[in-house]
């Protein structure tokens, strides 16, 4: 579904991405984790078509990304700058749906349904500044859901909320992505989170960035904040990802298991 091949990007003489290749199958939730400043955001912006990479290829459903694809949505880390503060939650969610050719009433219905899915049916008429950070990020997720993309990109979506909210949002993303069968690329610097949320974890190296490892997560689709994190497989995988993020080399034993 998503094919990133040998992606290279440089800012002037500074090479950020040095041949990154990632594949995601239809409906897969792929977490990309890497050390701070390793070009994760550059990667996401190239996939979204917001910047034109220096080299390499990004294919979505076999078509190269040249402009911003119309079947793609993004949830940014900084929800306070991503939602429009002059619009209510419902209008923030409904606005992109004009492109889907829906009339006013249908847009409104779709927005309400999406807000309901993220548990914010009662907050439809609230403005972003009347909501907590977690609620704003839910609105941002609802906006992406209502848009019905086939590819969802998330750029450290839980990076600016407290721990409790973060766990709620992780479970929310797991639930809605499975429900809609969306292919999702989630970028994070949180090792624990990447293993908990992902079907697969891609570990990036330091800049200039390459793929250090591509690890399948054999934890099943249904996950639980307490039980899943106690599993031996989870603990082993988390340790492995942690080692790789810190620049270690892959441990053969862990990889053999998968």
């Amino acid at each position: 579904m998503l094919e990133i091949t040998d992606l290279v990007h440089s800012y002037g003489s500074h090479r950020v991405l040095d041949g990154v290749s990632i594949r995601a199958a239809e409906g897969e939730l792929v977490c990309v984790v890497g050390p701070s400043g390793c070009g994760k955001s550059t990667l996401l912006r190239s996939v979204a078509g917001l910047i034109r990479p220096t080299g390499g290829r990004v294919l979505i459903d076999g078509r190269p990304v040249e402009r911003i694809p119309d079947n793609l949505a993004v949830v940014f880390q900084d929800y306070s700058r991503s939602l429009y503060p002059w619009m209510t939650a419902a209008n923030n969610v409904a606005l992109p749906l004009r492109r889907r050719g829906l009339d006013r009433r249908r847009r409104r219905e779709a927005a309400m349904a999406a807000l309901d899915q993220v548990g914010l049916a009662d907050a439809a008429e609230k403005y972003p500044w009347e909501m907590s950070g977690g609620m704003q990020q839910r609105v941002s997720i609802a906006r992406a859901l209502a848009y019905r993309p086939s590819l969802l990109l998330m750029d450290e979506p839980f990076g600016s909320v407290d721990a409790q909210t973060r766990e709620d949002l992780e479970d929310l993303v797991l639930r809605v992505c499975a429900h809609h069968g969306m292919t999702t690329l989630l970028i994070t610097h949180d090792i624990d989170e990447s293993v908990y949320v992902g079907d697969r974890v891609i570990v990036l190296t330091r800049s200039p960035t390459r793929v250090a490892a591509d690890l399948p997560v054999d934890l099943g689709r249904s996950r639980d904040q307490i039980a899943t994190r106690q599993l031996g497989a989870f603990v082993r995988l988390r340790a492995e990802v942690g080692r790789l993020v810190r620049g270690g080399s892959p441990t053969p034993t862990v990889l053999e298991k998968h």
Partner: protein
Amino acid sequence: MNAIRAVGRLWLVPVTLVAWEIATRVAEQPFFPPPSATLVRMGEMWLSGPPSRLLLTEQAMSDFGPSLARLFAGWALAAVIGVAAGVAIGCSTRLSDYLDPLIHLGRAVPPPLLVPFFLALLKLGTPAQLATIVFGIIWPILVNTIDGARTVDRQHLETARIFGFSTVQRLTRVIVPAAMPKIFAGLRLALSLALILLIVAEIFAGSGGLGYRLLSAQRTYLYADMWGCLVVLGLLGYLLNSAFLLLERRVLAWHRNARQTT
């Protein structure tokens, strides 16, 4: 409690008025009529009409009517042109590269200097007066709108790109609302400037209206009339500003609240 405090702060007004009254009565200068005499003349001039017209006299109609019409027409015209041009220039680096120097030049020209030019170019009366007002007050609107449109948050624009907003949507739903706080700052400055330029224009370029009344009262030594005009202009400026603040508070509620909470 707040009301009492607000009244408490106003004590300086009557004290000043009384002091002025005493000083002018003692001095007996014809240039400085006592406030009471000015007030009586204002009543005679403007508020001794029939109750059916809210006591407004014929003279009140001919003084205020054309002046207010010019003021609002000029302000509205400047707002439309200023905001439209400002958004266009703010969104296009090429346009702003070309036009920035011209704008700063135009802004630096003292608007009253252009009255003779507009008089030569346009008809005496309303056209020349409107041109003077619009040219004089458009700059704060234009400059503020350009700044507002140029400094829209990058992520607001990227969100619009990701979700494929049309050009119209991008302008009306993202750029203009984002620039609105700055546009309103410009509009408010322009409103107070408009009153000044209205009087300038009426003194130099026409007949009728408050500015003309002020000038003819001064020329015919009717100093109480002249002071009456000054007082009513002061009140008008104060009222316009208060009304505008009320409007701004409604339209920009999101802005005030967003700033308080983040």
